[in-house]
């Protein structure tokens, strides 16, 4: 781990990376959510329904939701699939939605308040049911296996606004995403294996490659940029897919994020006049379908994409010092995680300093490079009290 970055670019990447780490889900929050969905899975398995995680939790691209006031205590959003093992011919979309809804309502009624793993409320969404817990909620997507697909994990799901069954394949999507960063994924697993005992013991959803971080950075920037404009914000599936297609294996976060936003437009197709970003795991599913219904969403996406590029360029061109850089970064990602990141980095530098690992190079630059001159130990004395 670099403690004191030796170049401007690396210093910016370090600050962005440390900032996004502050917004990643904590182990405690992840474990709490995991216990809840295992508990739900145990109960639904009695009714022949299989429950599993999909989306950003499984991908490892979760970011703490932005709640507007910057204190960062928005609710995490966990996406689950509830797959009922029945044939399409034997059930309608409405029946499937109701069946899963009934199971969840019973689960809630039977276990409400009994233990920490039970939800406090159940509500209905367009495609899914939502279970509310302390600090997070779980969206449960009712679906059946897609018998016509070649993939074992393909599913068909219900949609209140659409007559036809919708096809998807969330598990295959996760495989696709990991393939976009396969080399980095394996490297990162080796790094993490030190804390888990072996490479195979490292849970895949805990791995964060630069591509994972890029997606988290972009989602966070989106959350801030569209804080007052929820309806038109680009969905995470679209951002994740475009970032995945754009990733060229960069290890530096600034370069990877810049590359992703700059290359995104190349991966938007036009099919018979319609904008198209295909789900790489499910042909026919268009993540940009809303752009064809609402032109403004495409325009706002493009404005946002340009804003990310401008913000990154602004970091690079900042000549008024680190405090000005931190302010720019706070505007882009929120002040709470940036301040937290600066604290983490400062504390890390001080530990290195106390251990005698901070050296002094030409021009006053502090460095951990051993070629520079060692700084003797000292403490900062005094303060306002002396005045």
């Amino acid at each position: 781990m670099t403690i004191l970055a030796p170049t401007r670019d690396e210093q910016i990447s370090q600050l962005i990376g440390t900032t996004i780490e502050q917004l990643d889900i904590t182990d405690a929050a992840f474990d709490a959510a995991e216990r809840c969905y295992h508990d739900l899975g145990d109960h639904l398995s009695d009714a022949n329904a299989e429950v599993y995680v999909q989306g950003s939790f499984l991908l490892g691209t979760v970011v703490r939701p932005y709640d507007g006031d910057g204190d960062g205590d928005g609710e995490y959003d966990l996406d689950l699939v509830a797959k009922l093992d029945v044939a399409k011919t034997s059930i309608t979309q409405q029946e499937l939605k109701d069946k899963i809804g009934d199971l969840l309502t019973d689960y809630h009624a039977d276990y409400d308040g009994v233990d920490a793993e039970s939800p406090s409320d159940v509500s209905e969404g367009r495609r899914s049911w939502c279970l509310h817990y302390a600090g997070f909620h779980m969206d449960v997507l009712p679906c059946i296996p897609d018998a016509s697909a070649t993939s074992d994990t393909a599913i068909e799901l219900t949609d209140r606004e659409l007559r036809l069954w919708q096809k998807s394949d969330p598990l295959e999507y996760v495989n696709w995403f990991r393939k976009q960063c396969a080399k980095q994924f394996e490297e990162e697993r080796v790094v993490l294996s030190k804390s888990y005992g072996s490479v195979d013991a490292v849970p895949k959803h805990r791995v964060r490659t630069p591509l994972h971080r890029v997606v988290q950075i972009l989602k966070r920037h989106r959350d801030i940029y569209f804080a007052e404009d929820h309806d038109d914000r680009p969905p995470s599936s679209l951002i994740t897919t475009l970032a995945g297609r754009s990733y060229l294996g960069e290890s530096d976060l600034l370069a990877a994020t810049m590359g992703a936003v700059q290359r995104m437009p190349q991966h938007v197709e036009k099919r018979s006049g319609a904008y198209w970003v295909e789900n790489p795991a499910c042909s026919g599913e268009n993540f940009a379908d809303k752009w064809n219904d609402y032109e403004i969403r495409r325009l706002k996406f493009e404005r946002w994409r340009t804003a990310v590029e401008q913000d990154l360029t602004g970091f690079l061109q900042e000549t008024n010092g680190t405090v000005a850089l931190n302010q720019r970064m706070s505007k882009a990602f929120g002040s709470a995680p940036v301040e937290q990141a600066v604290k983490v980095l400062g504390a890390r530098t001080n530990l290195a300093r106390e251990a005698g690992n901070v050296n002094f190079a030409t021009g006053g630059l502090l460095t951990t490079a051993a070629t520079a001159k060692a700084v003797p130990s000292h403490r900062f004395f005094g303060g306002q009290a002396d005045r």
Partner: protein
Amino acid sequence: MARPTGKQLSVTQQAVRLKLQFPQEQAPTVKANRLIWSVTLQPTPMSIRYTVQICYQHRRRPKVTVVNPVLETRPDEALPHVYPGDELCLYYDDEFVGTENFIADTIVPWASEWLYFYETWMTTGFWLGSEAPHPPGTAKI
């Protein structure tokens, strides 16, 4: 930190060492057992360049100030870890002894570290460098 043994360091020896260690800076002015010297310090690649002035009179505490730019503070907060006159507090007790330790090897890098922690303080409101114990009856910020 190896201290020269035997003879006490003179102001001239301090000046010679500064000139040797920082050849790109103007040599210190030495007059009446007192040296004045300025150095440009940039603690991190993204940092601005600070001009720091060091005045040292034999056996006294070196007076270290940031002369350019004028240091900003957080709203309604005074600079932390400074003596009156915004002189930087860089060490505690005998961590530096002017007749034994070279300013070039202690005070100057310490000033760079002070600037690093000043910058993090500006953003976070916390002084993240190690702090020395404060005299009884004085509040720690």
